[in-house]
């Protein structure tokens, strides 16, 4: 089988990318490993999706269904219950190995790939929380799936580590299901979740938020189920302060300690990595350093709002289509976009003049909470943009667009945030 574009992953990102490329007339195959399209949205039964794209508030599944419907109307080929196992670069495109119970293993070729494989949750192991290793220490997203999709409660007395959005939403969800939610501990001196979630999920239910705190001890019982945890305040270098120990008897510790783009499929490809986003570097067309290999959604960078995922992926879909039409877009010259002061990261990483007709949508996160800031974008001595911003937090990704007509070949672009 040979396709123009293969989209890997059928979440918000893959759906939007596939629809956009199909609108341009491309021949597409979307591959999803689960038995249902929609990805992570299916388990997000709370409100708060779509304000940007639809100017209306939907639940996750409702938002997903809007796209799934459009996807089906577009008559795009797709495979469910099918996992992509391997990608190889071949001449003029890619060869993919996929596998499913029904069709077995198969090789499929295509000219271009859009990676939209989402992200996975950081686990206890990756941050080495000390203590016993009982059951009941579980990532918030897994707990959310068990609760919202399968209909099972994983515990009755809950503590949450990390104030990421999933953790906050799960605090409310477990509370409403009758669990006792004893608190949320956050290592940083500020929350990592959206402000609206702090208010609506914690404050409204009197769930305490312990800023500058972390879990330093975990106790299991003889049956290897969680019994209690200890939290401690941390100093400025994030080391626990002796004497601040507080023990909570709980049967569940939810971890909401971050998401990591899932790019393991690219392990054997010659892609350039970004240690900050923990994903790969792209140009303004969402193309990686491997020509024809595009990436978007949470596998490119972890988003807080699905609307941004959809919009970004639409752009990526259009670019992949352009790539296929132009047969091969030679990368003629590119300049770097650099993250300057107070920026955790910036995407895209390059402006490639082969894609000069594309607008450059820049997204970034700050390294800390800034009340008042001046955002400047410059190329050499030339200022491309200067804008005052208030209340910038790492938890909320910022977006702006650069006018390509302003950008010249030559020196790199620097994105800066000055504290005012």
């Amino acid at each position: 089988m040979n396709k123009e574009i293969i989209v890997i992953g059928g979440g918000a990102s893959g759906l939007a990318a596939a629809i956009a490329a199909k609108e341009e007339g491309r021949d597409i195959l979307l591959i999803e490993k689960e038995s249902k399209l929609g990805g992570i949205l299916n388990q997000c039964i709370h409100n708060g999706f779509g304000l940007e794209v639809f100017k209306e508030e939907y639940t996750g599944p409702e938002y997903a269904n809007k796209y799934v419907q459009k996807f089906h109307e577009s008559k795009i080929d797709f495979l469910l219950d099918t996992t992509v196992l391997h990608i190889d670069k071949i001449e003029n495109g890619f060869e993919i190995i996929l596998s499913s119970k029904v069709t077995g293993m198969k090789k499929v070729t295509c000219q271009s790939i859009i990676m939209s494989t989402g992200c996975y949750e950081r686990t206890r192991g990756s941050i080495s929380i000390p203590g016993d290793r009982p059951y009941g220490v579980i990532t918030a997203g897994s707990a959310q799936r068990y609760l919202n999709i399968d209909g099972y409660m994983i515990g009755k007395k809950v503590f949450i580590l990390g104030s990421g959005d999933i953790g906050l939403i799960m605090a409310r969800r477990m509370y409403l299901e009758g669990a006792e939610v004893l608190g949320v501990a956050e290592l940083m001196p500020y929350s990592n979740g959206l402000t609206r979630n702090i208010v609506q999920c914690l404050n409204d239910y009197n769930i305490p938020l312990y800023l500058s705190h972390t879990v330093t001890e975990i106790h299991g019982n003889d049956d290897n189920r969680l019994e209690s945890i200890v939290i401690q305040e941390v100093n400025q270098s994030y080391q626990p302060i002796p004497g601040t120990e507080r023990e909570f008897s709980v049967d569940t510790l939810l971890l909401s300690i971050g998401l990591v783009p899932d790019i393991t499929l690219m392990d054997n490809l010659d892609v350039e990595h970004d240690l900050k986003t923990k994903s790969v570097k792209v140009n303004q067309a969402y193309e990686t350093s491997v020509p024809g290999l595009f990436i978007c959604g949470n596998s490119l960078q972890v988003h807080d709002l699905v609307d941004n995922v959809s919009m970004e992926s639409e752009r990526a879909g259009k670019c992949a289509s352009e790539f296929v039409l132009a047969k091969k877009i030679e990368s003629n010259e590119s300049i770097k976009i650099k993250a300057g002061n107070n920026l955790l990261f910036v995407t895209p990483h390059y402006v490639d003049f082969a894609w000069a007709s594309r607008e450059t949508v820049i997204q970034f996160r700050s390294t800390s909470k800034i009340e008042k800031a001046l955002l400047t974008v410059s190329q050499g001595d030339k200022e491309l943009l200067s804008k005052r911003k208030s209340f910038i937090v790492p938890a909320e990704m910022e977006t702006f667009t650069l006018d390509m007509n302003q950008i010249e070949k030559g020196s790199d672009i620097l994105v800066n945030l000055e504290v005012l």
Partner: protein
Amino acid sequence: MYDYVVIGAGIVGSFIARELSKYNLKALVLEKENDVANVQTLANSAILHSGHNPEPNSLKTKLCLLGNKLYEEVEDELCIPLLRTGAYVVAHNNDEEQKLLDLVETTKANHVTEYELLDYAEACKTEPNLAKSITKVLSLPTTKVTYPWEAAFACMENAIVNGVEFKKNSEVTNITKSKEGFVVTVNKLDNYHTKYVINATGVNTDDIAAMVEKHVSFKIKPRHGEYYVLDKRVKGFVNHVLYPLPTDLGKGVLLTPQIHGNILVGPDSKWVDDKYRTNNTPAGLEYVKTNAKHLAENVPFHQIIRSFAGIRATSDQDDFIIEESKEAKGFYHLAGIDSPGLTAAPAIAKYLVEDIMHVQDKYSINKEFNPIRFKNKEFGSLDYEQQLEFIKKDPLHGNIICKCENITEREVLDAINGPLGSNTIKGVKKRCRAGAGLCQGGYCEEKVYKLIVRETKATPLDVCYDGAKSNMFVSETKVK
């Protein structure tokens, strides 16, 4: 009435069970945990040591060397995987080089015939990430790595097929002497009558001994050891087991390549009071990190996917204690079996059965004994053409359950339904590695529990993580 009751299903109990099944006798294995290989055999370095450092003429040396060889036999018979890594013991300066020469003397005295001294440049040819501070290396080509859980399952499965009975969740709580031998009480409830008892309970050997002896001649002094696990994506970072020079506290912090590509970093060594608490501590993990840096440059700590700890059943005597109880005839101890206990296990079993218990003089050979235990090659280890073959024979191989480790539905079903199948999340992980990878079950735990539900006709509320009361879920949600 049993001939033998074996208490404990770690690697030692499992090899003993298989050894006993070669004779016409009735044997029962009792294990307190919900699975085989859940204590020391669960958490160790997985190394089959060459025998370079225990005291010459000790049981440890003798059985380590023999055990290392015997694994070569069971590799094919029982499908126990071996990774022939070889090992490097490293020295950093003149002082350490002198100690390395002393170690060569011990190595020779221990009849380890294959060894070689290499200078840094030579060693770097096969081990390019070796720490730059290293000056000399003792190469030990016979050192290997196995997969301890699989080794224990293989032995126990084979023992079961050959007639041994196995009971899990069966904690021995009391033992009394009787006219014919012993009455072994399990969970304070059920009694088993037996002629002989084998005490292979690791850290509990002194407690069990105290059930039949007034004066127990040894004491277990638990020694705690912590590790980091690096993701399999680090495969090839080091290819040998890397040891520092041994000290009184043992072999030190090592870098050990594992069968599936991961690297273990550890262990440290700490005397502890609690025999059971295999917790991780910030100090222990820090120690491990610091010391690993003396072995290799730029250890990829950003690829840490997990940490764990184990407890060594070190005794107050230097050597393995493998003997008949002085007070209770017909009662046998396997105590102080810390490292190299995994290596020695097949030899320990033979030594106990033939040289200490003389089973061959008491029972006839089991002519039906089938030495073969077969296990399919791991799907993920096959090349594309072989994988197609597998799927043609069994479409369930087409369904990937664990994306990180490439584990198929067939492999999970085998883990649940095999001769020594398990209905727990951890049991499945130990058998087929679903959940052992980068995302630590984030993707597949849900699929695994649903397969357990389907295959064992349980409800989700029944599914346990590990112990028989470690249920994953506490209730259904209010609205369903």
